[in-house]
C-alpha cells in the first residue's frame, strides 16, 4: 500500500504543474490589468506604467511564469499585490476557517443525509421515502444565498437564538484568544468560548451543508436500494437474520463505497472555500478571498490559492481511495 501512496504522491507533481500552468495562463488571458485595478478611477497612465514596472508585469510572460514556479518550488507563494502581505501567511490565516466550516457542513450532511437515505431505501415508496426524496430535491434546488439570508433573519434577527455572522462574538474577545486559528480546537483547549464558537458555526454549516446533505441522501438511497436487491441480502434474510443486522451489517457496509466517494468529492469541494456562505456569514475563509483576488487581478493570491486548493482536493481524494480498502477487504493497493 505504501508503494501505491508514494506513486500517487509522485503523481501529484505533474498535476500541480498542470494546475499552475492553467491558473497562470487563464489569469493572463482574461483582460484587466492589476495596476489599473489597484489605482482605480484615479490612476493616470504614468502611474499605471510605474506600478506595472514595480509589480514585474512588464516582464515577458514566460519569465513571469518561471519566477512563479521557482518561488513555488521553494514554498514561496509570493506577496499579494494589493496588501503586500505574504500569500502563504494569508493562507495560513484563512485556511482554518474554511476547514472548520467544511468539517461542520460535512458533519451536518453526513449525520442527516446518510440516515435519511437509508430510511428512504428501507421504506421504499412509503411516506418516509417521499419525504426524504422531496427533502433532497428541495435541498439541491434552494439557492444558498437565499437560504442563508432566511436562516439569518429567522434565527438571528427574529428569534435571536444564534449569531448572524462571524466566527466569534465581540464579547468573547474578553476571555478567548485564538491561537491556532482553529477556533473549536482553541476554545476546547482553553476551556473557554466553546459555546460561542459553536453557536457561530451552526447557521453557516447548515447553509453550506444543505447541498451535500441532499446529494448524500439521494446517493445513499440509490446505493442501498441496489445492495438490498442483491442475493447475499436475500440469503441473510433467509437465514433468519434480523432486519437491523441485514441493513446495518450486510447492506450498509457494501453500499458505503459510492457514499464515501461522494463525501470525499463534496468535502474536497467545500475545502476550496464557499464564496456565497462566506459572504452571507462574514466567514473569513479562502473562497471569497480567492474570488476577490480574481476581481482585483491579484495574481499571487489567485495562483497561490488555487494551487493550494487543488493540492488539498487531490489529497482528500487519495484518502478516499485508501479508505476503500477499509470498507471492502477485496480491494488491495499494489
Amino acid at each position, binding site marked *: 500500500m505504501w508503494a501505491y501512496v508514494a506513486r500517487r504522491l509522485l503523481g501529484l507533481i505533474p498535476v500541480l504543474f498542470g494546475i499552475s500552468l492553467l491558473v497562470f495562463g487563464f489569469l493572463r488571458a*482574461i*483582460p*484587466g*490589468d*492589476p495596476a*489599473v*485595478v489597484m*489605482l*482605480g*478611477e*484615479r*490612476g*493616470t*497612465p504614468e*502611474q499605471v506604467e*510605474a*506600478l506595472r514596472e*514595480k*509589480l514585474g508585469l512588464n516582464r515577458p510572460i514566460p519569465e513571469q511564469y518561471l519566477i512563479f514556479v521557482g518561488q513555488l518550488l521553494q514554498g514561496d507563494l509570493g*506577496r499579494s499585490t*494589493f*496588501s*503586500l*502581505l505574504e500569500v502563504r501567511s*494569508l493562507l495560513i*490565516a*484563512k485556511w482554518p*476557517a474554511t476547514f472548520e466550516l467544511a468539517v461542520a457542513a460535512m458533519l451536518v450532511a453526513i449525520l442527516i443525509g446518510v440516515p435519511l437515505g437509508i430510511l428512504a431505501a428501507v421504506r421504499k415508496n412509503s411516506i418516509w421515502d417521499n419525504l426524504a426524496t422531496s427533502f433532497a430535491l428541495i435541498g439541491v434546488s434552494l439557492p444558498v444565498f437565499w437560504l442563508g*439570508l432566511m436562516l*439569518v*433573519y429567522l434565527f*438571528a*434577527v427574529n428569534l*435571536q437564538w444564534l*449569531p*448572524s*455572522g*462571524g*466566527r*466569534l462574538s*465581540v*464579547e*468573547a*474577545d*474578553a*476571555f*478567548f484568544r*485564538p491561537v491556532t486559528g482553529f477556533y473549536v480546537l482553541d476554545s476546547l483547549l482553553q*476551556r*473557554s*468560548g466553546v459555546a*460561542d464558537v459553536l453557536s457561530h458555526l451552526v447557521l453557516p454549516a447548515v447553509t453550506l451543508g444543505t447541498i451535500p446533505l441532499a446529494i448524500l441522501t439521494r446517493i445513499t438511497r440509490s446505493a442501498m436500494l441496489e445492495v438490498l436487491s442483491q442475493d447475499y441480502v436475500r440469503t441473510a434474510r433467509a437465514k433468519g437474520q434480523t432486519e437491523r443486522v441485514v441493513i446495518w451489517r450486510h447492506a450498509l457496509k457494501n453500499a458505503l463505497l459510492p457514499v464515501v466517494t461522494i463525501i470525499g468529492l463534496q468535502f474536497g469541494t467545500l475545502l476550496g472555500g464557499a464564496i456565497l456562505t462566506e*459572504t452571507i*456569514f*462574514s466567514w*473569513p475563509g479562502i473562497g*471569497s*478571498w480567492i474570488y476577490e483576488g480574481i*476581481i*482585483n487581478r491579484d495574481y499571487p493570491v489567485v495562483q497561490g490559492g488555487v494551487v493550494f486548493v487543488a493540492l488539498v482536493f487531490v489529497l482528500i481524494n487519495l484518502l478516499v481511495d485508501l479508505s476503500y480498502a477499509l470498507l471492502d477487504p477485496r480491494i488491495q493497493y499494489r
Partner: protein
Amino acid sequence: MRRQWLMALALSALASAGLAQRTLVFGHEGEPVNLESGNITDGVSIYAQRQIYDTLVDFKAGSTDPIPALATSWFASPDGKSWTFRLRQGVKFHDGTDFDANAVLFNVNRWWDPKDASRIQGGANYEIWGELFGGYKGTDGSFLKAVRVVDKYTIRFDFGAPLPYFPVAIGAGYFGIASPAAVKAQGAKYGTPAGGAVGTGPYRFREWRVGDRLILEKNPTFWKQGLPKTDALVMRFIKDPAARLAELKAGSIDLTIQIPPANLGAIESDRNLDPVLRPSFNVGYLALNPSYKPLSDVRVRQAIAMAINKKAIVQAFWGKLGETNGHFTPSSFKTYWSSEVTDYEYNPTKAKQLLAQAGYPNGFDLEFWYMPVSRPYFPTPKEIAEAMGADLSAIGIKVKFQTKDWATYLDDRKKAPGFQAYMLGWTGDYGDPSNFFDPHFASPITDLFDAAGKQLDVKELNALLARGSSSTNQAERIRIYQQADKIAFDLALRIPIVHSQPLLAKRKNISGWVPSPLGSESLEDVVKTNL
C-alpha cells in the same frame, strides 16, 4: 473539572456583559488593505486609519471646514509659495514617543521622496502624494520643493508655485502622522496584521485578525480630553451589505456604513435602528466622448442632457438620498457654484429639435457603457443605465448597453478613441473644488478624446483651472470656479446625474456619530448607552 468549566463560563458571562457596554462594534464594508498612512487610497483602509492616526488639519464635524488638529495654526507666506504649520505640543504617539516637527518631516519624506530609506519597498507606491501634489521629490511636476523643520514644533513646506489648498489637502485622511520609531522598528511589517500601526489618534492598535476583525483600544493619552468615549472599537469586516444590515438588526454590530439606498424604508421602520446620512461629497456622471461623430457636436450632448429625466431617475433610485442640479460639484461647494447654471430642463421635444438642428432628426446609435460594480454614486448601475437608455430612445437615440469587468472598464475608457458614452463618478478627497474639477477637466483629459483620437484639451477651461489651483486670493478663486462650473455645464462632456448621500445606519443606543462628507470620520465622540 466540571467546576472549572462552570467558573470559566461565569467569568466569561461577567466579562462579556461589561465589555459589551464599553466596546463599539463597527460593521465595516471590507478589510483594510494596509494601515500604513500615505500608502493606501481605498476608503476601507482610510476609515480604519482615521481611528488610529491624527492629521495635521482636521475638519469640523459634518463639514469640510478645516480646524486645528496636530497643527494648531498655519499660515501662508505673502507670495503664497510657502505654508508654515505650528504644531501641538505635549502630544504622544501610542508607543510613548513624542510628536514633533521631526515626526512630521519623517512622514512627509516617506510619502514624497522615492529614495527615502523608511519607504516600504516591494510594491508600495505612495501614489496619492504624487496624484495630489504633482509628483515626487526629484520629478519636474512636484509642487513641493522643500520641507524644513523650523523649530521643534514648527514645520514649513515650500512650493514652486502658490498652493492655496495645501492645508485642506494635507488634512485628507490619507496623511495620518505615524510614529517614526514604530515605522523604523517594524519595517516592511508596519501597517500589516503582524506589525500594526502607531499614531496619535483616539484608538490604538491591539489586534488584526485577518479576514475577520480589527480590534482597537482606547488611547489613554489621547490629547483630546475625555475622548474617545468608548474603551474599545472593534471593526468587523462584513463585505455584503445585506449581511451588515442583518447583523445590525440582530444587534451584533452597533453601526455600519454603505447600505444600499433601497433599504432606507426598512431601517426607518425598524424600532431599533436609525438611518444616518453622510453629506454628499460625490458626483455620478454620464461622460459623452467627442471623439465620436454625433457626440462631437455640443448640441447633441446638450440634447442628451435634456432628454434624460434626471429628477425622476434620482427620485426612483435614491429617493431623498440624492439630488441633481446640473453642477459638477456637490453642495458642499455651493460657494463655487455659478448662479447661471440651472439644470437642463427635462424636455424631450426640445432635445429632438436640438438633434435635428445638429443633423440627426432620426437619432443615432449609441454605445452606452455602465459600470459592473456598485459605487455610492451609482449603487445599481445597470438599472440606472436602463432608465437613462429608455429616456434616450424617446428622442430616437438607440442605445446599445455595454459593460466589462471593472479592471477592463477602467482601463479601456482611457484607450483612444475611448467609450462613446459611459457612467462613472468621483468621491472627493478634500474640501477644495480643484479636487473635483482638475481630475476631470484639466488637460490632458485622459478618458475623453478629440476627433483625431488625441486626449481632449479644453484650453479655456484648462487655463481657468490652472489659475484656480494657484491663486491665493479667495474671492478670485470663487469667481474662477464659478466660471469653470458654467463652462463645464455648457460643454456637457460629463453630465452630472446625481450627488448622492451615502446611507449609514446605527442602533438606537448609539449617539454622537456625525459622518463627514469626506468619507471617513473619527468615532471618538460616539457614545454607546444601554437601552
